[in-house]
């Protein structure tokens, strides 16, 4: 629901237009209306979320740069006397992907990559947490979305040469009308070479250099489009608001930009550099200038355009892809232009693509746009870009709690194994390989653990260094539907456990909060509860959020919101990639441990859905989790963890099975004999193969962690428990196949 619109294609509310009119002392021009529409959209301004997001922890010893610029930065380690940071950005491209999934998802990757690039970083990885609707029917729009979005992500990421390191996919009716395409990108940067998204000191008079694709009418109104609910009647109009991807141009643009970074460093120049996203040239230049304490003066006639005769508001706020904006000292600009236009031949790579000076940074804090000799926009830049706030009412969200009688909770013993095949084949538990094999997992040659081989992907991102970075994502929508707060807590805990399971130290978080309509108090209450959950879990685990994104208005025409979806990515750091825990069981006879004082609730789990159990979502036990993470870290540093899998979707028995599958994939046909109950509860924990049992038990005591010996690795390629036995090959078949129908 949106209040009466103020002009065609403008989503500003009447009170907002009144405020603009009063401040300007005149009627705003059409260009100004569109500019404020973009800047004050939820997408750009976070007007109804910012004051809640303040509760998230954003500082800590690992934080090099917290939220506020285009990306955050986590400290990775030192090499050759220099400090390196991992640049992290996380965004959604949900609305565009629901309307035109291939282009919507592809431009999601395109945009997130620019957010990382503009920090002075080399882009090293992407990840894609995905939520799709029911895909069972071959002709359904839901299946079309699920397939085309993946194809779009593949087409873009593969072409630019960035490996897909992590991601997940859930299929749930709650996403039938609103898919979620979240995207994460990582970069690597020497901490003394970070480039900022603001014009630096003494930048008055500097050039504003626009680089990339020729501006065209695509993506006009994108910021406010993504801040509205999808309305089927507007579908055709909405399609025009989706940008057109050009990964081929981006490939060249990225490489040219790396060359420019090197050239500027050689000359000791500290530039300002920012990605063009929501709000186009206007949004980018206004923020680049205002956040440095300046104004800007832009001549729209200087913009390289794809078609003549575009209206000034389209040139100013249209969201054409593959563009970036530099603030540069005028004596340096020609050398940068030469790199883009001559060495990397941008004008030959795509029609009228180039680097071109479009304006300058001004001392006076005004934002001025000129078009055909006329001033079409002239406003106070801080008024345009400053924080606006919508404190909307909300209804506190309560988590689901069943009647006491409805709680059959003991973990399963002998009766577990007969259920294992069904759980492994569950659409949210089964192998994602049919999906991710379309993504290049290994381009750049820096991959230590490719996506899908373990709980987290791992890279060695610094040339000639043993430093490693791990990445994993989490966020179970079935938990979100039942209890937004605990679902958010579990997302943080699970993402952290996943990077710990490859031997990395969880070092930083990023989130994308996908929720319904903030003007619906119940839906807004879910968002507020989820922020509480994220803040609690991150605080308890001593982790900070370095970047993030909010996507609201994910509701269908009928007013039904998606399941509460706080999606979290965790960045882990590894001092020496030789210490990475490689996937799969290693040695027959080695003991298997279960780690975790795990809550008995089963709400949101795969088994609860299969057996029709109504239950509460488990609450993480933070004291236990901290002890387990400490134990895992010490044990992996001593090299006595031979294999490790975090317990999540499908529970402990599925974690055991997946560790056996990983061994089979590596050519070790091993099995498992379990002598302790091991079932399908999904509360966080770990399954481990341990190389030195006595030492591990001693470390567990020192760390105060509950480690339970659950069995041993077996020579025979079977999983045996309670007198029952299943062939690993057959189980692996159940697990591998289900998604092949969707992704053949």
């Amino acid at each position, binding site marked *: 629901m949106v209040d009466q619109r103020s002009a065609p294609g403008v989503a500003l509310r009447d009170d907002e237009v009144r405020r603009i009119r009063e401040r300007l002392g005149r009627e705003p021009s059409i260009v100004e209306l569109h500019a404020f529409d973009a800047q004050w959209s939820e997408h750009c301004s976070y007007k109804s979320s910012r004051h809640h997001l303040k509760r998230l922890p954003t500082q800590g010893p690992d934080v090099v740069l917290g939220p506020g610029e285009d990306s955050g930065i986590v400290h990775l380690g030192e090499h050759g006397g220099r400090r390196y940071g991992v640049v992290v950005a996380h965004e959604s491209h949900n609305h565009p992907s629901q309307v035109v999934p291939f282009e919507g998802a592809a431009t999601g990757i395109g945009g997130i990559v620019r957010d990382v690039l503009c920090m002075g970083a080399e882009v090293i990885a992407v990840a894609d947490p995905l939520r799709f609707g029911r895909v069972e029917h071959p002709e359904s729009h839901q299946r079309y979305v699920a397939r085309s979005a993946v194809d779009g992500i593949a087409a873009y990421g*593969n072409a630019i040469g960035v490996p897909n390191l992590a991601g997940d996919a859930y299929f749930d009716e709650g996403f039938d009308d609103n898919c979620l395409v979240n995207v994460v990108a990582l970069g690597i940067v020497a901490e003394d070479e970070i480039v900022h998204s603001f014009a630096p000191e003494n930048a008055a008079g500097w050039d504003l250099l626009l680089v990339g694709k020729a501006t065209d009418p695509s993506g006009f109104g994108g910021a406010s489009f993504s801040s509205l609910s999808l309305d089927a009647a507007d579908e055709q109009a909405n399609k025009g608001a989706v940008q057109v991807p050009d990964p081929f141009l981006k490939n060249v643009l990225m490489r040219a930009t790396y060359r420019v970074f090197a050239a500027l460093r050689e000359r000791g120049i500290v530039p300002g550099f920012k990605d063009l996203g929501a709000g186009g040239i206007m949004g980018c230049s206004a923020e680049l200038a205002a956040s440095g304490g300046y104004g800007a003066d832009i001549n729209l006639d200087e913009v390289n355009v794809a078609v003549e005769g575009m209206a000034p508001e389209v040139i100013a706020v249209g969201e054409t892809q593959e563009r970036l904006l530099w603030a540069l000292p005028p004596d340096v600009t020609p050398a940068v232009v030469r790199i883009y236009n001559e060495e990397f031949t941008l004008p030959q790579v795509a029609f009228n693509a180039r680097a071109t000076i479009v304006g300058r940074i001004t001392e006076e804090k005004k934002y001025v746009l000129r078009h055909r000799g006329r001033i079409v926009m002239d406003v106070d830049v801080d008024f345009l870009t400053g924080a606006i706030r919508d404190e909307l009412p909300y209804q506190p969200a309560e988590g689901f709690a069943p009647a006491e009688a409805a709680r059959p909770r003991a973990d399963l013993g002998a009766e577990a194994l007969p259920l294992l095949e069904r759980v492994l084949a569950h659409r949210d538990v089964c192998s994602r390989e049919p999906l991710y094999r379309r993504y290049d997992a290994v381009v750049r040659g820096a991959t230590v653990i490719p996506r899908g081989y373990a709980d987290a992907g791992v890279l060695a991102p610094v040339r000639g260094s043993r430093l490693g970075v791990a990445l994993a994502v989490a966020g179970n929508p079935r938990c979100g539907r039942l209890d937004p707060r605990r679902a958010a807590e579990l997302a943080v805990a699970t993402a952290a456990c996943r990077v710990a399971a490859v031997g990395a130290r969880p070092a930083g978080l990023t989130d994308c909060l996908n929720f319904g309509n903030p003007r619906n108090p119940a839906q807004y209450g879910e968002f507020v509860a989820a922020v509480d959950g994220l803040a609690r879990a991150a605080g308890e685990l001593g982790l900070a959020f370095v970047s993030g994104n909010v996507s609201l208005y994910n509701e269908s025409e009928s007013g039904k919101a998606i399941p509460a979806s706080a999606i979290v990515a965790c960045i882990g750091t590894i001092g020496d990639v030789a210490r990475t825990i490689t996937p799969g069981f290693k040695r027959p006879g080695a003991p298997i441990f279960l780690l975790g004082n795990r809550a008995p609730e089963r709400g949101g789990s795969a088994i609860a859905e299969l057996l029709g159990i109504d239950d509460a979502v488990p609450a993480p036990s933070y004291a236990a989790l901290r002890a387990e993470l400490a134990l895992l870290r010490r044990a992996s540093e001593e090299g006595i963890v031979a294999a490790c899998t975090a317990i999540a979707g499908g529970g402990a028995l599925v974690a055991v099975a997946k560790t056996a599958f990983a061994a089979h994939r590596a050519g070790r046909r091993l099995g498992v004999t379990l002598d302790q109950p091991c079932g399908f509860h999904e509360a966080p924990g770990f399954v481990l193969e341990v190389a030195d049992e006595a030492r591990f038990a001693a470390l567990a005591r020192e760390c105060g962690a509950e480690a339970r010996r659950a069995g041993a690795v077996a020579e025979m390629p079977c999983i045996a428990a309670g007198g029952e036995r299943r062939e690993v090959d057959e189980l692996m078949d159940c697990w591998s196949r289900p998604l092949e129908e969707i992704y053949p």
Partner: protein
Amino acid sequence: MSARIAVVLFPGTNSEDETLRLLRDCGGDAELVHWSRPAELRDFDAYVLPGGFAYEDRIRAGAIAAHDPAMDEVIAGAQRGKLVLGICNGAQILLEAGLVPGTAPARRPTAAFTHNGPIPHFVCRHVYVKLAIDPSRCAITRALSPAAIIPAWTANGEGRLAATPEHLDEIAGGGHLAFVYAHADGRVDARANPNESARGCAGLVNREGNVLALMPHPERDAWNFNHLDRPAGADPLTPSGGAELFRSFVAAVRA
């Protein structure tokens, strides 16, 4: 005197970083040369065409790049006996340039690496390749053991060798089939072949043995840290696995 290797960059190339690093880590004197400066290529002794999507794979993968001025230099160098290694998109370009199998004049392709089977989409998968020729048949493979199993990643949408049945016989009979897909233990069967490539072909060599086109990427499984089954205690930064082919190439360039 050190022999110089050019890693040729086209618009759309994406694997230049790992290719250059591995050549250098294997002792090669290698540098990137840009499509905007084709004349510089003349001074190099050998060429590597890395993977990617040169010119966006327009028409067919490699078809436009094969006509880039940079390829004038590579074709001329190959005809004078300089060593040329093309990987993935680089292999597609060599086929489109007619340098492999090289049974027809330059730029008259006789076969193609085309859309994967059975379903024509991009596939990223770990594979192994083994020699289908004697190592000495190709200068670039000369230092490999005849039984070498090279780990690599296939990562392409168009990697399936296709040609007329008569030409496939000519390719196999003429000793052009350099590498075939295999399992880790060296067995060769249809399951080892990731894309229904004709004759299980992973790589082709020309008649003279100085031009090698290889579809999968050995340079992405080429340092100890890349291997999932690396031995404990191994230096993660030491080149191994896929690096064997690059070592052999560098040795041949220096010979």
